[in-house]
């Protein structure tokens, strides 16, 4: 795929954000789309966002569960960027109308105390770079119609990112076993899904190391103070306007996202 086509695809995705009208799956229209093209399309959108004054505040890792990877027919995760305007405070409703087809995922968010530059980052270095973890809810969304995505579609679409809600109780890595930390996800008061941190690539720390090493190969460093969402502990759940979602984590605390009623 030539760069002009990559720019064209990036523009169509940016247009989908503006119009809230999804586009057709990329792999149907662009038969030659490959992994490098998909990340380049994502990068073109990142450049556009930076040009609008947005700031990158971290990264997210997706496709981290065995079930999701089997469903997608892949054996690796993917990543996208977290912009400053994707972070929503816990005390205000999330405007539901800005998303196309939002879903929610409970995650254990890392906040970094120092830069992490791959490749060659071990789990030990990844753990040493974590300042603390926070309970988090990630809103994922797809600019591709009906979530009909392959790994290439979702990478081009910034790893199907939407928004982030962080809880406000920091926990040190030394105080919790992330692999065996339980998580209960409640939607409008009903238990909807449960899981353990190890559902994320075996350990969320492995996801952090994978991210550092993968972006490192493209010359990108994970920055001190940045947030890394390592992947969902349960399958993603569809969100409707007016919903309230709470994720409880053993030893890490809880976080709640309230969604506003849809606005015209």
């Amino acid at each position, binding site marked *: 795929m030539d760069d002009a086509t990559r720019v064209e695809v990036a523009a169509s995705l940016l247009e989908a954000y503006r119009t809230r009208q999804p586009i057709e799956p990329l792999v149907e229209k662009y038969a030659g789309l490959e992994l490098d093209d998909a990340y380049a399309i994502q990068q073109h959108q990142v450049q556009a966002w930076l040009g609008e004054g947005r700031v990158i505040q971290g990264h997210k890792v997706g496709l981290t569960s065995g079930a999701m990877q089997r469903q997608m027919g892949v054996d690796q995760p993917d990543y996208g960027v977290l912009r400053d305007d994707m972070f929503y405070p816990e005390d205000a409703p999330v405007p539901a109308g800005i998303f196309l087809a939002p879903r929610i995922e409970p995650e254990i968010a890392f906040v970094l105390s120092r830069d992490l530059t791959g490749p060659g980052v071990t789990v030990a270095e990844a753990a040493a770079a974590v300042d603390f973890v926070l309970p988090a809810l990630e809103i994922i969304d797809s600019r591709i119609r009906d979530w009909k995505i392959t790994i290439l579609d979702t990478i081009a679409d910034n790893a199907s990112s939407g928004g982030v809600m962080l809880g406000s109780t920091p926990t040190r890595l030394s105080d919790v076993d992330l692999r065996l930390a339980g998580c209960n996800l409640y939607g409008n008061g009903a238990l909807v899904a*449960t899981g*353990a941190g190890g*559902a994320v690539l*075996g350990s969320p720390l492995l996801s952090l190391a994978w991210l550092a090493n993968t972006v490192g190969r493209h010359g990108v460093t994970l920055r001190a103070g940045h947030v890394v969402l390592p992947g969902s502990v349960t399958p993603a759940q569809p969100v409707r306007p007016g919903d309230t979602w709470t994720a*409880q984590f053993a030893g890490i605390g809880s976080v709640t996202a309230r969604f506003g009623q849809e606005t015209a």
Partner: protein
Amino acid sequence: MSDWDIDRAATALLAAEDSRTDREPLTDEWPEMDLDTAYAIQDETLRRRLARGEQLVGVKLGLTSRAKQQRMGISSPLVAWLTDAMVLPAGAPVPQDLLIHPRAEPEIVFVMGERLAGPGVTAATAMRAVAGVCGGIELIDSRYRDFRFTMPDVVADNASSGAFLTGPVTLRPEGLDLSLEACLVEVDGRIVDSATGAAVQGHPAEALALAANALAGRGLAIEAGWIVLTGGMTDAVFAPAGSTIGVHFTSLGSLVLSGG
């Protein structure tokens, strides 16, 4: 009129179990078999197990997840019997010919310190009767081909009981948050699923209370010293011969079970 009755059904199910041969559901030939009859068959198979020297060691709950209850069209779990013949020793491989088509479920297990008699047992009062909590792996098995059954079929079949392993630590229940007690399930070293105790009827203590109240309806109680398997935290995972199932709990340690 069907020529089936409680005796014949108990004989058929125990014969299938003893010969490791699956069969069609009883309701295929005996559609009138209702839940009360099914529990009577379950009790008759228990009576025969005890008569051949097995010891009653406790009860198990089945269908404790809301998803499974919705699939079966029921609103509460079912209760079945555990005998010492179903107990697996720790650290030994499971004999390949022990079961027909076993599937593994991670469970939170209670060891009762006091008798618990319904009706009117609540989750809070149920926990007062619990002396210890440990993790478990239950190998469920069905005498029915492809696990195809109706609710009365599975009740008659002792809730697909097979064999179970408990351990390695037994903790006092005080201070344990069983709602967030998590497990990671591995098959041959690959994580295949995870869940928490909340997946069991909202909380394993809710399952225990339901079991006590359900048994009261049959004139029975959960006795001191019994084991209670509270129900699968995740969907059952296939456990073919030669596979190794690992379950890692937040506070209740790790269990490994390997096929011979």
